[in-house]
């Protein structure tokens, strides 16, 4: 595999509705921002880009089949090769990885990844229905198809198994909304208290409206290239900051569509297939053995095996052994506060069962930001410094790419330039991870980005 560089990105303003533009024009907004950032015009870039990957989740929301080619056409990228990818909530993350593969494999030297979603075209509860069609329409959807309900079921089991509390979940909401306060791209920029979160209208017990991300209209784009592609871009006049940002490893996992079908594995199978190298210590093996002795089974409905497998593969490819201390920040798929907590565990930022206390510890918070919370620990690895899906919004096909763009800017040390505020710049960020998640944990992508030495 060749080294892949992520050299630029752009994000449209995420909003509840963007009726001012059609979806191709929304992507154009993000695309133009990325090009402008490296100082190239479209005709210059067109001469060098080898192709693209398009990302959008739902033909239902778009009410337009072949929407990918409409974007390719509008951007002026025809007749270059392109294809659309789709994988539920992970569509954007998959798009980023498919563009990575195009470059890493040698097929392309310069590849554009772009994505969008326009969710405002239907009423909120109809939108929830469309999203719920991403559950088994024979067995899950007809029982009460509602993703917030599915995630709420998962977290009641997490609470029962591990003692996780709604207040710990609320810490995630306070953190992410507060982080977004300094992110001009975010849809919801709010200073909240734990009480605000818990007193918000109950949606699916125990998740309130402030535990759940909102629907959005938005687009994002990133430019990936090889060493050769980089040379071509710079020869054409592109100004690409040093140190470069590269993507040393990607990983992806899957799991059963119906959460009811997820296995309840034995301890030995967990050790064999799912244990992270960072967990392979006598202490942690004993900790997990104790969980199994109490009746814990993996992954059940409380954990995302796909997220664990995606992390494991990405860490192996990127040479990460201790994720909490070797990754400087994570942009992860916090469609729900509960799923951020579950994902801490999948990604090995803490052990399974410790996500709740980890959420309230302060370790995943930004340094230098006042949250109005009593946090016992200092920040170690800020999670969702951008505000995540909960505060930025979740225009599905754009979301995973938005994470990539924010990660590129973090590693370029350019948050101040793009946000007009340095509050959310993770100090001396050398390595970040982005995590994109579909369904109830069906497809999960994890990609590692880092500053070139």
């Amino acid at each position: 595999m060749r080294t892949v560089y992520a050299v630029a990105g752009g994000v449209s303003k995420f909003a509840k509705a963007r009726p001012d533009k059609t979806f191709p024009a929304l992507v154009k907004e993000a695309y133009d921002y990325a090009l402008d950032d490296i100082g190239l015009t479209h005709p210059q870039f067109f001469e060098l880009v080898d192709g693209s990957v398009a990302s959008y989740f739902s033909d239902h929301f778009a009410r337009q089949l072949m929407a990918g080619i409409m974007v390719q056409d509008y951007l002026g990228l025809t007749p270059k090769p392109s294809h659309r990818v789709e994988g539920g909530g992970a569509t954007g993350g998959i798009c980023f990885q498919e563009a990575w593969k195009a470059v890493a494999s040698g097929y392309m030297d310069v590849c554009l990844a772009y994505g969008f979603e326009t969710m405002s075209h239907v009423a909120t509860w109809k939108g929830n229905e469309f999203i719920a069609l991403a559950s088994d329409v024979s067995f899950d959807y007809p029982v009460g198809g509602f993703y917030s309900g599915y995630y709420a079921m998962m977290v009641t089991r997490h609470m029962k198994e591990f003692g996780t509390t709604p207040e710990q979940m609320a810490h995630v909401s306070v953190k992410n909304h507060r982080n977004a306060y300094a992110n001009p791209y975010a849809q919801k920029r709010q200073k909240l208290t734990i009480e605000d979160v818990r007193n918000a209208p109950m949606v699916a017990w125990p998740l309130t409206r402030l535990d759940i991300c909102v629907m959005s209209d938005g687009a994002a784009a990133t430019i990936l290239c090889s060493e050769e592609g980089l040379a071509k871009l710079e020869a054409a006049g592109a100004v690409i900051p040093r140190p470069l940002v590269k993507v040393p490893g990607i990983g992806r996992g899957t799991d059963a569509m119906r959460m009811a079908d997820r296995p309840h594995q034995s301890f030995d199978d967990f050790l064999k297939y799912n244990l992270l190298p960072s967990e392979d210590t006598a202490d942690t093996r004993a900790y997990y053995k104790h969980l199994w002795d109490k009746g814990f089974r993996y992954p059940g409905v409380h954990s995302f095996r796909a997220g664990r497998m995606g992390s494991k593969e990405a860490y192996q490819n990127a040479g990460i052994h201790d994720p909490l201390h070797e990754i400087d920040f994570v942009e992860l798929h916090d469609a729900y506060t509960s799923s951020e907590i579950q994902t801490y565990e999948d990604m090995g930022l803490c052990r399974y069962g410790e996500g709740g206390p980890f959420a309230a510890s302060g370790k995943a918070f930004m340094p230098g930001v006042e949250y109005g919370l009593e946090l016992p620990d200092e920040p170690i690895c800020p999670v969702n410094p951008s505000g995540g899906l909960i505060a930025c919004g979740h225009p599905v096909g754009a979301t995973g790419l938005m994470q990539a763009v924010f990660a590129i800017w973090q590693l370029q040390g350019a948050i101040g330039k793009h946000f007009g505020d340095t509050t959310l710049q993770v100090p001396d960020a050398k390595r970040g991870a982005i995590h994109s998640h579909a369904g109830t944990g069906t497809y999960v992508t994890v990609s590692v980005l880092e500053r070139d030495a």
Partner: protein
Amino acid sequence: MTHKMEETFGGYILHNVPFPTELDEAALASLKRMAPILIEQPYAITYLHSFGQDSPFFAGLTNGRFLANRDPETGYTYATPRGHDMYTGNETEWVELPAEGKIHAFTVCHFGSEEFLPDCPFILGQIEMPGADTLFLARLIGLDPHEASLDWIGMKVNGRFRRLSKMKPTDIYFYPA
């Protein structure tokens, strides 16, 4: 208590959109400042959905029987039908399970997808059924949706079949035993 009225579709039918009476250069340039036009596009369709190899399950519910699928080699049993086993790849066979179990996980939906809004609040549960290795998603009744409690997890429940079946998995629902 909310202080916001819900936004709904169903606006006026509009004729005659404001537009410059003369398209001179200034008027053409001013079109860039024009607000977007939004129209409603109704969309309705009836699908002919086949339950395929899972059809006997629904026939069973209609006749008051809970059918599950079992791998003939390993005995691994799926409470939610599955024509082939995910581990061996074998075709599964039909077995009957007693319509009872325990609550493994649950939620109370106070909102829902448009189709289910009239049912709110309703309770969803993942049910552990004796003899099954996987769970079954069902509606729960007989519990107070305003008194949700983690104590519900582990509670024994019985299944009841709808007399007038709807050919949906909700033709069985569960209530505290």
